[in-house]
């Protein structure tokens, strides 16, 4: 059960990020989580949204290149050491994480972590076997 993350390539230009987010704001689209990877030349804006396909379409209609990436979401109790446990589980299984970002919501007590791994199926199997809860697309839509 992968989560579809939407990514947008953002050039390192003044106002580029603001303009990109402005497209979502104008269309009244919600963001569940957001993370930005940046280098001196460019940034990659990664988002968890209620409807990835609709968001992609929206960007496309505005001439902005966006892509979908399958990521693994993990639900964890909002308490110290929880994320460390998740990473330890993956590390012991020899799974490396390309990037990671976490977010909390106001609707429940849990925190969520988004993990980009090579093999989502295997990573989720490992996490589930260790007693972690995998985030579902329904979770992403209904947060």
């Amino acid at each position, binding site marked *: 059960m992968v989560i579809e*993350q939407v*990514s947008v*390539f953002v*050039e390192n230009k003044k106002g580029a990020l603001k303009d990109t987010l402005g497209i979502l704001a104008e269309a009244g689209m919600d963001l569940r989580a957001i993370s930005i*990877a940046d*280098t001196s*030349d*460019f940034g*990659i804006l*990664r988002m968890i949204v209620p409807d990835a396909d609709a968001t992609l379409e929206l960007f496309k209609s505005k*001439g*902005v*290149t966006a*892509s979908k*990436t399958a990521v693994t979401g993990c639900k964890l109790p909002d308490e110290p050491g929880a994320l460390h446990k998740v990473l330890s589980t993956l590390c012991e299984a020899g799974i490396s994480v*390309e*990037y990671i970002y976490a977010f909390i919501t106001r609707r429940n007590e849990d925190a969520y972590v988004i993990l*980009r791994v090579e093999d989502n199926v295997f990573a989720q199997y490992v996490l589930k076997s260790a007693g972690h809860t995998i985030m579902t697309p329904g979770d992403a839509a209904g947060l």
Partner: protein
Amino acid sequence: MTYWNRAMETMSRDELSALQSERLTGAVNRAWERCAPYRAKLEAAGLQPGDIRGTDDLPKLPLTLKDDLRDGYPYGMFAVPMSEVVRLHASSGTTGKQTVVGYTKGDIGIWNECMARCLTMAGATKDDIVQIAYGYGLFTGGLGGHYGGEAIGATTIPASTGNTKRQLQMFLDFGSTVLLCTPSYAMHLGDAVRDAGIKDRLKLRIGIHGAEPWTEKMRDEIEERLGLRCYDIFGLSEVLGPGVSCECAERNGLHVMEDHFLIEILDPETKQPVPDGTPGELVFTCVTKEALPLIRYNTRDICTVDRRPCACGRSFARMGKLTGRTDDMLIIRGVNVFPSQVENVLLGVEGAAPYYLLVVDRVNNLDTLEVRVEMADGFSFDEVRRVEALERRIAKEIMSALGVTAKITMAAPGSIERSEGKAKRILDKR
């Protein structure tokens, strides 16, 4: 080995040189007598027709530029009355006026002969079924290819370009064995054949492609997708149209029809001939054409020439691929850089699109080059690592192809400005 015209194509270099000298003298005389702009040019250079006795005197003649032809629009450069002109073609001008090219009956005969040689060079015979998928019209590709096909006695199909589904139908129903079209259209047809899953049912064996630059990688892909062997053909309407030169089975350069067209390669700065193999400006002189005389026409394309014998037995010189245009040349830290070279590199790098902007600047008295490159559609840019690996790969390829260090900046697909005609590919801040 099969030749269309063995006597001409395999004559010794000495005989060829004598023939060229005789024809050049005649061509200069005709231009002097019948074409006022040429007469004015020759007079301005202090020349009389008698001063040109052979090819050794070629460097004395003034160069002709595209602007000279444009200034004469439409018929000012013709050397025959319109009653002798049997056809017109026009080259699409990227800016403003077109260049109009007229042909006499004799000129059309030369063209057909040259195209027949090209088709034969690539291995086509009267038993072939030749599908011409170049555009028919003012552009020379369609009719040029067409009459060449008929000249060798092949069954020639005037398919013209576009309507890909119908092209595929013709491949199947008519059993086409030879395909003439631009390399990009061949790629497109190849995609369509793959999607339709009909490669096994094709009879295609020879592809002859020109009118735009293409890479060896494209050649491989076209051959793989259409199951044929491809040959590069070259021509420009001012000189003739397709058929000025073509690859033989050796595919080691394009044999120039030197009994009709004299080729020179000149240093872009000094306009003096460069040694064979050294890149320089490609210059043609038409020694047999009647309607539109062309003396030392500087194409401003950058090219090389190889006059060593070819295993196919033809004595005609071979020109290399065009690698750029002097109009676009940039000098960066003393190195000549052509935008087309960058484009060639990008065509060969997976994940990169051939849309780019060269930003040249000077920092602490040193030239700097930044290349902004669009990612290919569908390139997975979600990981910083992948984007940076792509940048490094492009920088490395540019270094090895051009010999300059470039800073690569990736840009989103479609984000680099495209303009009509001549694309703005250079931002020089120096």
